[in-house]
């Protein structure tokens, strides 16, 4: 049944439906409402799980590492500084091929310290070996939790569901939560073959040397490659069962005959769709492509979608300092590899919570001046906030 839920609560309810046995977390804005809700569920007896208040994010990540290694389904969530403090452990989880699922409530990274949303934190972990799904709405955030456990456990890869802090975590909007039986149907109980168990004493996390370390990494890479069809397939299966799909790897919007494609990740794509509709109404051939799965990077699928585009604009809320737009750079590489030479405009904005409003997105589209020679990206213009009451009439 559809309910109006805060994003954090929707995610917590969805996690709860996945029957995690261990939840560990350390509070950080804007992740807190997720773990607070889970804590309340445990206190009320609505969720049978061990809820562990860690002493740091480093501890929280390590707790879920241990929990999954011991064969339990586990959950954690963090953001920003907390995600970076987890970094060493997150690489380790991925290297151990433990199917951990976590939420990153996307937030800027300090200094200067800033609690508002951008993608700088999770993008910094892009090379860690985690699957990363960037969600657009609270509905998708909730559904993606259920998909994430299925994907993680099927691929033995950890999954990070990235949802924009505040824009999603703190926003109430309609969410349809599935019933427990349906989720149980979709997501079988977790059986971890390599679980630590005296009846089958195995060693996890041993040392490796030059003659085989690289093979661990190539195996991870292969697993990532293999995960792409799995992600697609489970999204389709989810659609069959629950009547909702989120695009699997990529979600296209009005791409038919689109000459210009606006591409981006996360909640900003809602506004992008509104802009696309408006521009289409004005006769512009514009479409949108949402990159839901950033890791594994769906290079081939992207090339297929974008083969006909004449103008590609990538909007992204992170910057690789010293290089520029991360998604744009990877997209250029992918298109180049596919022999598509359409230039990719890289527009960076929304850092530290700056609002990428429909007006800003439209302005980005309308900007026709050439980028400075040699520039690989530009910053999005600012939204102009009216200080005085506007004289636009109420409808």
């Amino acid at each position, binding site marked *: 049944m559809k309910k109006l839920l805060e994003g954090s609560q929707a995610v917590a309810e969805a996690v709860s439906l996945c029957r995690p046995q261990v939840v560990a977390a*350390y509070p950080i804005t804007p992740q807190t409402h997720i773990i*607070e809700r889970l804590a309340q569920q445990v*206190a009320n007896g609505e969720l049978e799980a061990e809820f562990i208040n860690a002493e740091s994010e480093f501890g929280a990540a390590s707790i879920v590492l241990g929990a999954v290694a011991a064969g339990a389904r586990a959950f954690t969530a963090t953001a920003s500084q907390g995600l970076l403090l987890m970094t060493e452990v997150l690489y380790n989880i991925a290297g151990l091929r433990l199917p951990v699922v976590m939420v990153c409530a996307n937030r800027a990274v300090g200094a200067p310290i800033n609690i508002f949303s951008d993608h700088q934190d999770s993008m910094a972990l892009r090379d860690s070996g985690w699957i990363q799904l960037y969600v657009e709405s609270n509905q998708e955030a909730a559904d993606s939790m259920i998909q994430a456990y299925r994907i993680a456990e099927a691929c033995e890869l950890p999954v990070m569901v990235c949802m924009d802090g505040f824009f999603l975590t703190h926003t109430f909007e309609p969410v349809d939560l599935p019933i427990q039986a349906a989720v149980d149907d979709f997501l079988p109980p977790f059986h971890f073959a390599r679980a630590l168990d005296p009846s089958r004493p195995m060693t996890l996390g041993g040392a490796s040397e030059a003659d085989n370390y690289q093979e661990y990494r190539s195996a991870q890479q292969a697993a990532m490659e293999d995960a792409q069809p799995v992600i697609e397939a489970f999204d389709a299966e989810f659609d069959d069962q629950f009547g909702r799909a989120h695009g699997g790897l990529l979600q296209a919007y009005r791409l038919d005959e689109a000459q210009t494609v606006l591409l981006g990740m996360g909640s900003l794509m809602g506004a992008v769709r509104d802009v696309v509709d408006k521009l289409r109404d004005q006769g512009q051939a514009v479409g949108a492509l949402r990159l839901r799965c950033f890791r594994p990077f769906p290079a081939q699928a992207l090339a297929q979608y974008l083969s006909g585009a004449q103008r590609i604009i990538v909007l992204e809320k992170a910057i690789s300092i010293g290089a520029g737009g991360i998604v744009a750079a990877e997209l250029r590489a992918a298109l180049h590899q596919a022999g598509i030479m359409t230039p990719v405009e890289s527009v960076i904005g929304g850092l530290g919570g700056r609002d990428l409003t429909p007006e800003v997105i439209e302005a980005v589209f309308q900007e026709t001046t050439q980028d400075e020679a040699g520039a690989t990206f530009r910053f999005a213009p600012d939204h102009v906030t009216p200080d005085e009451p506007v004289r636009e009439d109420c409808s």
Partner: protein
Amino acid sequence: MDKRDTFRHNVLTSGHRACSGCGEAMAARMVTDLIGPDAIYINATGCLQVFTTHNQQSAWQAPWIHSVFANAAAVASGVEAALRAKGKDTPVVVQAGDGGTFDIGLQCLSGMIERGHDVLFVCYDNEAYMNTGVQRSSSTPHAVRTTTSPPGRLSQGKHHLKKDVISIIAAHHMPYAATATIAYFPDLKAKVEKAMRIQGPRFLQILSPCPLGWAHDSALSVTVSRLAVETGLFPLVELEHGELIGVMRLAEQKPVEEYLRPQGRFKHLFGTKTGAVELRHLQALADARIRRYGLLDADTQWDTARAMQSARHGRGGYASSMPASEEVKNDA
């Protein structure tokens, strides 16, 4: 000079964005004014850092740096080492909340103390993660409601005990470690001044009520911190090289209920059978702390009554300026 700064420096000045009635803002203002502006302050992440440095505005009138949550003591170690290398003796002071002390910052703190850095580490203990909206920390007392230790069908608030951090710190055999609270300014002053006279690592744990997280009236921050001491739940102690050298005696032991009642974070304990068990538990914890530190029979003149008493600087009763004295007008 601004008349605001005539009688003290206001190292932590106005315009900061702490909640109304913030105990931590009060404690930090007291401590930093006692130390003065000729010091370098290192702040861990937390309320104090957030509310004093909002968006390109700073409430600090002394050199101050914030890095991340866990590393304040290590940053301070570096600052102190640099000053030593440059032949300076500027005091170095760390300010952190209980999260940055008891939990995420404990490792760096332990390292700083073990290496003997000449740093004063001040922990403003408000017994939970208030900056993120009241989640439990290892400093949160038993049975307290927070958002991550919520009471529910299976729970009476936090299951675990408040970490005895002063004992952990003192076990480093460091020169000076003490507890204090905002309610007893003369005591706090003596401890800060003493700490500033001592070389080497020093530690102060200052109980700083949070009207938001403790859910008490914003006017009661001082009152509540006084009751924490008077009930025995928060003993005021001093340790040198791991040895207990002084306590604040309780002039009168108050029942813990007096302390718990005004605080919403204990509200769920009242009126239920399971809650009553936790109330007895909290009383027993207070009794045990009183016995452990000898708070009722310590051989010291310094007690909770003496430490409360206001200095009488001027004469009171300048009521002669009151309108009651018509003579003033008529006689003229």
